[in-house]
């Protein structure tokens, strides 16, 4: 089965006064149709930048992006317009991702109007259908975003993303800003939609419990690189990279834990500006040796579909 979305050695560097900021540094991913790839990491790891690169909201510094086996790394205007029909995004902030001056119907119909796909009564019908699909009451058609709560606003964002019937949807922390009881509603909705429309998701989040629930495969990012990638369940049963292990152990579980050994990382994340060669996690890693600090870590396949970027993986 050929992948729907692929990247090869994708890089994005930003020019800053002190040098170059390596936001995304050599990412290789491959997502099959109908699958969900979860991208997990903390702030500064580059996950949001990766999502935006795939949607051509940012231009890659280097590397290749392929969609349906075609190179889309630097599309021209016409190609871009076509691509946008197939690749969409659900944003994190249900407050700033909707234009405060537009009504719900205007927001949802905008993609279809820009592409002149439907007009008049047909357009309106399509908007109503989309609203039903995402669980928005029809009477909210003429409401403004500020009149509605976070959960409803996020549903508007989802309806908008689906308007052009895309194949691939990047979900950038879509439930992080919502209350716990609403998060569950939206996650269920997203999973139902995936099944019904055969959507492919890239699910970006820092919340490990959410990502486990929705993903087939998970990639853990740290400072612009993937440090571990594996099928979802396996990552939680057997995290091999020290960072993944610390990340998993750091999550506060809603269970009473009796004196559990927590891996508390020391220090802070190092700077992504002009990084030196060697493992970028080494400064905080309890297992780090000299070799780690000088040699770049490549992803090693330790099990079927399970990759780790740590040369000491079998010693820890």
């Amino acid at each position, binding site marked *: 089965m050929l992948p729907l979305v692929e990247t090869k050695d994708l890089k994005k560097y930003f020019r800053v006064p002190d040098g170059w900021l390596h936001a995304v540094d050599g990412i290789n991913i491959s997502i099959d149709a109908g699958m969900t790839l979860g991208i997990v990491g903390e702030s500064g790891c580059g996950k949001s930048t990766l999502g935006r690169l795939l949607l051509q909201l940012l231009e890659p510094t280097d590397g290749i992006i392929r969609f349906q086996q075609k190179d889309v790394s630097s599309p021209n205007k016409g190609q871009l317009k076509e691509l946008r029909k197939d*690749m969409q995004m659900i944003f994190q902030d249900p407050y*700033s*991702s*909707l234009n405060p001056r537009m009504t719900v119907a205007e927001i949802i119909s905008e993609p279809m109007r820009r592409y002149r796909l439907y007009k008049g009564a047909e357009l309106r019908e399509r908007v109503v259908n989309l609203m039903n699909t995402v669980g928005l009451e029809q009477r909210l058609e003429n409401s403004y975003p500020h009149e509605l709560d976070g959960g409803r606003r996020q549903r508007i964002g989802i309806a908008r993303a689906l308007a052009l019937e895309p194949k691939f949807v990047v979900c950038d922390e879509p439930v992080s800003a919502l209350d716990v009881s609403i998060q569950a509603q939206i996650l269920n909705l997203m999973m139902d939609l995936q099944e019904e429309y055969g959507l492919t998701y890239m699910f970006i989040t820092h919340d490990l419990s959410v990502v486990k629930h929705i993903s087939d495969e998970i990639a853990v990012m740290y400072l612009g690189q993937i440090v571990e990638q594996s099928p979802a369940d396996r990552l939680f049963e057997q995290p091999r990279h020290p960072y993944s292990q610390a990340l998993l152990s750091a999550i506060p579980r809603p269970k009473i834990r009796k004196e559990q050994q927590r891996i508390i990382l020391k220090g802070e994340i190092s700077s992504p500006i002009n990084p030196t060669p060697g493992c970028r996690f080494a400064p905080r890693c309890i297992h780090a040796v000299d070799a780690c600090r000088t040699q770049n870590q490549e992803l090693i396949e330790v099990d079927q579909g399970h990759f780790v970027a740590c040369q000491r993986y079998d010693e820890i």
Partner: protein
Amino acid sequence: MQSREETNRSRKNYSLWLSAWRRLRKSRMAMFGLALFAIICLGAIFADVIAPYPYDFQNLDETFQFPSAKHWFGTDSVGRDIFSRILYGGRVSLQIGLISVLISVTIGGSLGAIAGYYGGKTDNLIMRTLDILLAIPAILLAITIVTALGPGMFNLMLAIGVSSVPSFARIVRASILSVKEQEFVEAARLSGCNDAHIIFSHLVPNIMAPIIVQVTLSMALSILSASSLSFIGLGIQPPMPEWGAMLSAGRAYIRNYSHIVLFPGLAIMATILSLNLLGDGLRDALDPRLKN
């Protein structure tokens, strides 16, 4: 029992403007400004109906009359009714204020929007050029333009309009900068919007608040500038009444017949004051911090 859904239904079309208006109503100063400005506008619009005399009707038997029942504001050096001249003068001032601001907003706003949206070299080029313009004192700039193009109402409006372009550009640019990083702009790109559509249909409607405030304050400044220019003889030519020109003409008689300068002065002051009060009130009412 009413849930949030039902509340939303009852507030279905509660736009942001309505809530701003409600906030504006609470400020007594702003309402006073609005009322005063409305009176001045009505006086100017209905001058034909309200004015007891034509503005250029000279009655040499009734020169230098103090305010009386026959001439509410008295008469000037050639017997013209000052009250009528104030009303017609209002027409002139308001037109100048409005149109010059329209010129500034369109040109300045577009330049600011383009500079703010594209950033980089475009931004630098536009803003540094406007900085050069800013370096020239506004009155001097206006004088230069009027001298080059000749006196007259349209040239006056153009001159004043151009001198306000940098301040509008700056305000629009700053507002665009703060809004363009919002996620809904990215969403608009993904929806197939091109740059022009994003700037004018998405960004501009969201930055109306500071623009509106600046419009009221700029109108006040324009009227003042027009009066200043007319005062030094570069603006409106007689016999068309203009408050600044009336001030200038009445200068010579200020000691004995101060009413000739008092009323135009008061008219200028009232207009500027009302616009400033309104502008301040609007700034508070449209404050985005209060919106959420």
